[in-house]
Structure formats: structure tokens, C-alpha cells
């Protein structure tokens, strides 16, 4: 049988998974009882998963964050929210499928949900541009955020992108301006804003949906100023050193929590979000509701000033004066 897409360090787990499936197949065809062996194998798989995912190196975290079976924005939309109505277009140039957004409700409350959207196969990825937005994607996002502001509804963003697309059309239409404008305008909004890094938080293209009152991260998500490959190519002069770059960049969720950038890290199931979409979505839903509740209890100007103060203190410097 063809094995499912997996990462190198997942090979042992995939092998056990295949043994389980083979055993089930045999049991069904021959009608024999395999429950003993089966539970043994399942225990083995669980402990393998737990130990592997507890001790991931930063570059492995990056691989998990980019896992082809990891849930994307629309997968969480289905599981966390009800009554999602997608809204399209930036009213200026076109609809960018690398960003999705629209009204949805959670726990009976209307919210605006916006996120990067990757594709799962080549055809879908060409449509979604691998989750790399053009300026019109960011402008659509800003349009939807302003709509949420108009109607006093919170905004929840899902961040999952390798980065903003570097291309000729993107530069012509002002990729830098589109990102910059989102940063400034998100800072100004009076509604509650929550961002969740669900996979890859790729630089300015990620941040353009990420100036929010709360920054949440899934356990195996990463958030970085540059990809480990890009960083290694520049500073180590070869992308082969991406492992060293991933270590040095401090891009894992625990790093970001320690550095005071992430406000909360949401634990994933033992084998990562891709091993159990529903469980991941359920934990994420709880976290979103909790933070939304806290933010709603603040008045809008206090909340906005707290947002400014939060970004105002980011960084590390000494003052020799």
C-alpha cells in the first residue's frame, strides 16, 4: 500500500501504522481475532508518537508546521465555527485565494474570520498560490477587518504562510504598502483582535494578519522573521545549514512564549495537529473563547492602548546613557 505523506522522523510511526492496517486487513479477510496484537501495536504507536513529538528539534518543528496533512484555515473554520459565509475580493483588483475570510459564528456570537489558505494538492496549491498572498489578499483582509469594525464584531485571524509572494505583479501592486497599511490599520481598530499561528508564520506576510490583542500559537507552529532556509543561505552561505539557522532563530512556540511575543500556546495531540484535526480544533476553540471573553470585558480604548503598549515593549536593548 502507498504510505501516507510523512516526514523523515515519522517513518517509524508510519511503519507501525501500516502494520496495524495490515493486521486489520488480515483479520477481516480471515475472520480471526487480532485484538491482542492490535492493542499492543496501538500502544507502541502512542508511545512512539509521544516521545518523538516531545523532543522535536527546531527544524523538525518547522517540518511539522509545514506538514502536508496539517489542518489549514478552512479546516478549522469547519470545526470551530458555524454559519461561515465567505466574502471575496479587495474591491480594487481581484480576489486572492491565498487569503480567505468572512462572517462566522462561535458560541452564538458573530465574528470575522480571516486566514491564509494553503492548498492540499498541486491543483489547489496553484489556485491558492501555496498560501502566499499578493497585495490584494492583504487588502481584502483589511477590507473585512474594517467591516468587522463597522459592526463592532471581533476579528480572528489564522496565520499560515511561507510569506508574502515575491513576484513582479506583487511588487507592481505594492506588496510592501499593502502589508504596511495592514500593520498600521490593525493597530487602530477598536474591536477585539486575536491571531492564531496555526502552521507557518512566515515573516511580514504573516505579520500582516498578526497585529492583534492576543497572539496565540499552536504547539508545533513556528513564527519567524525569515525561513531557516533563507537565513542559512544568507548567513551560512548555503541553505543546507537550515538546521543551524532554525536553532539560532528561536522560532518555536515555546521560544516565542519565552520571548513574550506569543501570549498563549495551545497544546496539540501527541502526534501533532495532523494526527487529530478534531481534537486540535476543539482545544483551539476553547482557547479562542477564553481570550475573546477576556478581551470583550475591556472597553475599546483601553484594549487598543494595551495593544499599542504590547508592541511598544517588544524587542531587547540596553541604554548606555
Amino acid at each position, binding site marked *: 500500500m502507498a504510505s501516507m505523506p510523512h516526514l523523515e522522523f515519522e517513518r517509524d510511526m508510519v511503519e507501525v501504522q501500516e502494520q496495524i492496517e495490515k493486521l486489520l486487513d488480515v483479520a477481516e479477510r480471515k475472520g480471526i481475532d487480532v485484538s491482542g496484537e492490535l492493542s499492543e501495536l496501538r500502544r507502541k504507536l502512542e508511545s512512539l508518537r509521544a516521545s518523538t513529538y516531545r523532543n522535536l528539534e527546531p527544524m523538525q518543528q518547522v517540518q511539522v508546521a509545514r506538514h502536508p496533512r496539517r489542518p489549514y484555515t478552512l479546516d478549522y473554520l469547519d470545526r470551530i465555527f458555524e454559519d461561515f459565509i465567505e466574502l471575496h475580493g479587495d474591491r480594487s483588483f481581484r480576489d486572492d485565494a491565498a487569503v480567505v475570510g468572512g462572517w462566522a459564528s462561535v458560541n452564538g456570537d458573530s465574528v470575522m474570520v480571516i486566514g491564509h489558505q494553503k492548498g492540499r494538492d498541486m491543483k489547489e496549491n496553484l489556485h491558492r498560490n501555496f498560501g502566499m498572498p499578493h497585495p490584494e489578499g492583504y487588502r481584502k483582509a483589511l477590507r473585512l477587518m474594517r467591516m468587522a469594525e463597522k459592526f463592532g464584531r471581533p476579528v480572528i485571524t489564522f496565520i499560515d504562510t511561507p510569506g508574502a509572494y515575491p513576484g*513582479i505583479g506583487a511588487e507592481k501592486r505594492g*506588496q510592501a504598502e499593502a502589508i504596511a497599511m495592514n500593520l498600521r490599520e490593525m493597530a487602530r481598530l477598536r474591536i477585539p483582535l486575536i491571531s492564531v499561528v496555526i502552521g507557518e508564520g512566515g515573516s511580514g506576510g504573516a505579520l500582516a494578519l498578526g497585529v492583534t490583542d492576543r497572539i496565540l500559537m499552536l504547539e508545533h507552529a513556528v513564527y519567524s522573521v525569515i525561513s531557516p532556509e533563507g537565513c542559512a543561505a544568507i548567513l551560512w552561505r548555503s541553505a543546507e545549514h537550515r538546521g543551524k539557522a532554525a536553532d539560532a532563530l528561536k522560532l518555536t512556540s515555546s521560544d516565542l512564549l519565552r520571548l513574550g511575543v506569543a501570549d498563549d500556546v495551545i497544546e496539540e495531540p501527541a502526534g501533532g495537529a495532523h494526527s487529530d484535526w478534531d481534537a486540535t480544533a476543539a482545544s483551539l476553540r476553547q482557547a479562542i473563547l477564553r481570550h475573546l471573553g477576556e478581551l470583550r470585558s475591556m472597553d475599546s480604548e483601553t484594549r487598543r492602548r494595551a495593544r499599542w503598549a504590547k508592541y511598544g515593549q517588544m524587542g531587547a536593548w540596553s541604554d548606555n546613557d
Partner: protein
Amino acid sequence: MAWFRKPKKPLTSDDRRDVPSDVFEKCEGCGEILYREKLSRNLHVCPECGHHFIVPADVYVRILTDEGSFEEMDPGLRSADPLDFTDLKPYRDRVRAAEKKTSRGDALLSGRATLEGVPIALAVMDFAFIGGSMGSVVGEKIARAGRVALSEERPFLIVSASGGARMMEGIYSLMQMAKTSAVLAELHEAGIPFFSILTHPTTGGVTASFAMLGDVNIAEPRALIGFAGPRVIEETIKQELPDGFQRSEFLLEHGMVDRVADRRELRELVVRLLRHMWAPTTPEPAER
């Protein structure tokens, strides 16, 4: 057909014009040998071809402020190397080397000044300091200068020259984009003018934050300005980029900057804009 073609003579070392670099400088634009002092008087613009040399931050202080009015702010801020970052060499060493080279604590000089008598806040990036990259110190100094502009109601000018975010400070350097933009949001709401002056080169996280947020964006001629660097784009799309791509004139054509202005006309342009955008300052009362 080819009778008029110049005989192909390979260039020899005799053809190279070696000049003593402390007195003369060769123009990167046209190859003309220029007398350094004259070049400096011409604000480091080639009198022959108009090429704008990359210059240290204090040149813009000279251009954009009244003589003797500039008071530097926060000269003592230094990077704290939050990630203890080491690639082929430690980040600390890179900072130290840059400090020695530029006699500056980081890639930005900021201060209060007046321009034709109007109090302003000015921040100028220095490309010679680790490629003008933005880390915590650049972000913090811009944020502080912005807050001074806000509380003292001074128009804010930033002159950019940067390769983007400083990756050796990881996520903190990315967050400086949000930090600087958030201060500009306050300034915007307060109705205080912000001028962004983009010089060669301005790319990456600096372009994608404060440098594109001017009420008026002004670019120096032929400056490379963009989000992604040209090499990254070429590698992504696997084709050569058109001539003039991501240059100031290209940005003007595509609506991303308001004006392309020669460095020698920059001061006058800003002064004239300020007259339209900022109420003339009445003289301060003698006692206050």
C-alpha cells in the same frame, strides 16, 4: 557592414583609472572621477550624471535641518543580542565591527531639530551599519522619535536605507515592523504629518512598514525600493527582471510614491509640503 565598429581591444590594467580615494571618488553611475570635496558640496550627487551616492546619516541631517538645530536623541541605545545569535560569527562581533566602522550605536540616527524654523522630529537610517537592518534598537528609536513627534506636535521625517529586518534578532526584528507602524497609527490619528523619504536601497521589512506609510512618500532617483529583493524574485519566478524594475521611477509609475526628488531639491520640497500640511508656527512667547 561592420566597418564602423570600434576595434575590439581588450581592456588592460592601464585603462583602469586608479585614483587616490581620499581625495577623489569614482562615480558608480558614469565612471567620472570626482573631487571628493566638490562631491560633498553637491550633497554626494554626481554633477555629471546625477547618480546619488549612498551617504552616512548625518548628510541628511545637514539637508533637512537648520544648521546647529539638531539635537540627537537616544544615542546610547545598543542591541542586547536577545537570541545570543551566532552564525559564521557572533552577532555581537558584527555589531561591534559596525559600530567601529560607522561610529554609530546602531543603524539609525534620530533627534529633534528645526526646519526653516519649524520644529520637527527626524530619524535617518545608516546603510553602512549591517545593511541598515532593523532590529530592536532601530525600532525603539523610531518609536521614541515618533512619540516625541506626537507629544510635542512635531512633523515626523524618516529617511530610509535598509536591507530589511535584522534576522539576527529573530522574531523581535519582525515585531519592530508592528511597533513602528503602531506609533505611526497614533501620529496619523493626531493629524501630525509623516514624511517618508526612501533612498537607495530600501527593501524588506522597512519598506513593508514605516517607509510606505508616509502621508507623502518621496524617493530619491533610481533608488531600489521593494518588498522582496530582486534576487529572491528572480529565483522564485525563474526569469530575469525587466530593466528599471523596483526603481523609484517604477514605483512612481505604479503609484507607490508621490514624488521622485533629487537630493539637492529635497529640502525645498519638504519645506513647501510642510507649508501646505502644517500650520505655520507662531513665534514662541519669550517667557514660558
